[in-house]
């Protein structure tokens, strides 16, 4: 019931309510306030694939709310000995109250949710979904633009394998955003996702050039071309470094336009952009903490007080 596997698990009203909760939890996320809402609760961080920000921000979120964390990594454990995901999850069902799972195989989060009683938060499954990232992205956009409605969002880079943009684009169209997808032909958004987006009545365009999109953009969402998802090096080298954004490229941009990136970046965003008002990617990374705090509370059935003080 408290599972979050894809953005379909949250209605628009629930999304807005989680973002509200996250806003009220901001001082707790920053450590300025002590609010042990999840005291006595245990989160299992089940990371079958590497992660820095997601794993650490889940841990920070749980600890800021007074809970504790079990960290699991598949290296050197029974998984390396061939244990099934089902069996590994049975173990965690007894150790923790909630689990965040990242796995290289697509569908692993739904599979885990069906394997155990405790709530499962999908922290990224292969090239599938990454809904907690989407929630922190929506939080960042909402706090910058004051609304999610009717924005013009440009998604750039690896749209084929990038699970972040898959989840985000689903959520954005539900709030009436227009999407322009900029990617090389070999990394286009999967056709079933584009067809889903259009079935919501969304305006979805595809383009090769990033420069043309800058003047009309409200949000430019950059992604890394993920070397690890390519079957071979040659295919990767054909598209590596194809999109680069520098501060000088943004002279024609709207003043309130924001540049986002799920990080880590390689060379898609030049450091010259970091000091501009457009750069929101570091704030976005921090926003993982209040957003995941709100999501942990929701999944564990703990209400965030209307007034946090």
């Amino acid at each position, binding site marked *: 019931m408290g599972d979050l596997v*894809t953005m379909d698990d949250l209605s628009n009203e629930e999304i807005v309510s989680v973002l509200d909760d996250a806003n009220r939890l901001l001082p707790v996320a920053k450590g300025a306030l002590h609010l042990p809402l999840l005291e006595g609760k245990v989160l299992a961080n089940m990371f079958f694939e590497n992660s820095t920000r997601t794993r650490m921000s889940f841990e920070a979120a749980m600890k800021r709310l007074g809970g504790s964390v079990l960290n699991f990594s598949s290296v050197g454990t029974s998984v390396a000995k061939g244990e*099934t*995901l089902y069996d590994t999850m049975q173990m965690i069902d007894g150790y923790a109250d909630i689990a965040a799972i990242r796995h290289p*195989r*697509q*569908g*692993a989060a*739904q599979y885990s949710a069906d394997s155990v009683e405790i709530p499962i938060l999908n922290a990224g499954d292969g090239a599938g*979904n990454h809904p907690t990232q989407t929630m922190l992205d929506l939080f960042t956009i909402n706090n910058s633009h004051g609304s999610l409605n009717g924005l013009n969002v440009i998604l750039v880079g690896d749209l084929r394998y990038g699970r972040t943009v898959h989840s985000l684009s689903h959520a954005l169209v539900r709030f009436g955003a227009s999407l322009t997808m900029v990617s090389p032909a070999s990394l286009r958004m999967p056709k079933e996702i584009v067809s889903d987006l259009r079935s919501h009545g969304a305006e979805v365009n595809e383009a090769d050039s990033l420069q043309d999109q800058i003047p009309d953009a409200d949000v430019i969402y950059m992604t890394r071309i993920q070397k690890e998802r390519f079957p071979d090096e040659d295919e990767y080298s054909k598209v590596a470094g194809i999109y680069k954004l520098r501060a000088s490229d943004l002279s024609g941009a709207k003043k309130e336009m924001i540049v986002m990136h799920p990080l880590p970046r390689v060379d898609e965003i030049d450091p010259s952009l970091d000091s501009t008002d457009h750069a929101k990617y570091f704030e976005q990374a921090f926003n993982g903490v209040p957003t995941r705090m709100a999501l942990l509370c929701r999944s564990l059935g703990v209400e965030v007080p209307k007034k946090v003080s």
Partner: protein
Amino acid sequence: MSEMRRVTAIRNGTVVDHIPSGRAMQVIRLLRIDTDRSTPVSLVMNVPSDKIGRKDVLKIEDRELSHKELDRLALIAPSASIAIIRNHAVAEKMMVELADDLVNIARCSFSNCITINDREPLPQRMRVVSRDPLEIRCYYCGRGQDIEELIEKIL
């Protein structure tokens, strides 16, 4: 009707008619009657049909297929019609119907799906997201399935 007489009428059992031409062997596999040595099965392939051009027909003796078994047929023979025969007469007529949720009927064809490890114990599951055109996705990984490929992956 003369096409139906290429094999003798059965006394009791099930007739599966209007199978798309060439698909009868897959139907046999899907219904798992290929492993049942006690059931006499007559098979007619590629006969003319007013309804679908050319068709295959299966007659399965002394066995009445259940609705559940027949529902699985919809994947490869959505236009098939079924007659349950008792004492040489048609006792019941049924049309196949594709369920919304296909459990343990076929394996996901995506090489990076969690279900690709056949030691994982949960059932294979597919969701029918559209009927016309037929669109089926893996319940776990969400990947759209190529129907021809899916037929090859029938469990």
